[in-house]
């Protein structure tokens, strides 16, 4: 019986044909479009109307399939394993007598929903095939071969596609997200400016000096400007240390950061 081919009991795989069919499924695991597709394929072995399918048996087949894939060391994608876990849960619900105190849907409800999903997928698949089997434009029937969109240009119109529109918007908005505040430039003291300012000054710093003393004029009162200048001055200090022109230290957490020339 085809139903048995995925039985836990390996001995029940009788004929060569059955075994080959089983292995074909395994080898073909890449060919499946997800766990639902695999379940649908497995359900065909039951050779019954999808409405009468035994979900319990199907769960059984699926779990056997996953087991076998493991034995053959085939890596299954995560969603296959999620489905396996869910089916194992469903199987236990279907097998055990219902616990009246337990909340949530019954095993039968869950099984019915799975059967519905399979039937729906199967139906869409059939419709897809019917759709593609229809007479098609450019293959079975044809449009005008010599359209007459002729002659003199009377008027110029401008056009754009939806894609242009969306990409245009995306272009603006991403730019926006990367450069948050263009108009606040005057409150910003850049790293370049800080470096330019500190390079000549560092030569005179023979003793440890608080880096806050390096803040430029005009950046010592407004909090936003202090923040910006402090950040860039600190970054510039690190740059100078990296270049081997200065040393930096901090006695304690939140203590002043000090800088001096390296000789």
């Amino acid at each position: 019986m085809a139903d048995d081919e995925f039985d836990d009991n390996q001995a029940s795989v009788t004929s060569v044909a059955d075994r080959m069919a089983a292995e074909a499924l395994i080898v073909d695991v890449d060919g499946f479009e997800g766990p639902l597709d695999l379940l649908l394929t497995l359900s065909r072995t039951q050779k019954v109307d999808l409405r009468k399918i035994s979900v319990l048996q199907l769960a059984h087949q699926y779990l056997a399939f996953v087991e076998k894939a493991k034995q053959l060391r085939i890596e299954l994608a995560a969603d296959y394993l999620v489905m396996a876990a869910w089916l194992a849960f469903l199987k236990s619900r279907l097998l055990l007598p219902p616990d009246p105190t337990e909340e949530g849907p019954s095993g039968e409800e869950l099984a019915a929903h799975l059967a519905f999903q399979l039937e729906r997928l199967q139906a869409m698949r059939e419709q897809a095939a019917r759709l593609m089997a229809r007479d098609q434009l450019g293959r079975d029937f044809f449009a005008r071969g010599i359209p007459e969109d002729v002659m003199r240009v009377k008027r110029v119109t401008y056009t754009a596609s939806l894609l242009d529109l969306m990409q245009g918007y995306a272009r603006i908005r991403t730019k926006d997200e990367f450069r948050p505040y263009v108009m606040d430039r005057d409150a910003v003291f850049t790293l370049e400016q800080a470096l330019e300012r500190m390079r000549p000054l560092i030569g005179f710093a023979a003793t440890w000096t608080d880096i806050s003393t390096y803040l430029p004029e005009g950046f010592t009162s407004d909090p936003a400007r202090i923040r910006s200048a402090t950040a860039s001055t600190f970054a510039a200090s690190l740059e100078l240390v990296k270049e081997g022109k200065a040393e930096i230290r901090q006695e304690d957490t939140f203590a002043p950061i000090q800088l001096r020339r390296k000789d």
Partner: protein
Amino acid sequence: MSDETENKEESLFDAPPIAEQERMCEAMLFASAEPITVREMEARMPHGCDAAEALAHLRKRYDGRGVHVVKVGDAWALRTASDLGFLMQKETVETRKLSRAAIETLAIIAYHQPVTRAEIEEIRGVSVSRGTVDQLLEMEWVRFGRRKMTPGRPVTFVVTQTFLDHFGLESARDLPGLKELRSAGLLESRPPPGAMPQSPEEGEEGEDTDQSEMFEE
């Protein structure tokens, strides 16, 4: 032409006789490879013409001929009879091969429209790859429909006139098997048991077009 003019004295330029209007529609349909709407035809025709009526006559005239007058959505086109496809090998255009995923996604959009990406994924049981929808959008077989009035207001997809034209459908209602699928409940979006029902947002009533409405017009 003159006999028609008598009873409509108000209008300075009367609409041409219907036979003439029929010729006009015929010429316009012949000249275009794309379907043309009644509105567009009337915009090009002399004032007072009734393109819909002219088209009805024209359609009858082409009955059984090598070329047919077909309705595509709310537009009209001329297409060769499909039993003569064998003569047109030279004209056959090699259409891009669609993947199985793309074909299924297309069918789901056609039968469940307007449908969200999440719903497509729910039906197929796998995530929809980016390329799949892109390809269908690029072929102009699907387009964005209106947003669903569910949390997150996801965008939806619907099929286009180009899709209808390609598959020789007058409207999405003419999709094969639509009625059977609906009566079998297979077009319902049924939440899994125990899941929270996704109720439409409040205060938006009347704006939501659900699938059945879409097919009714």
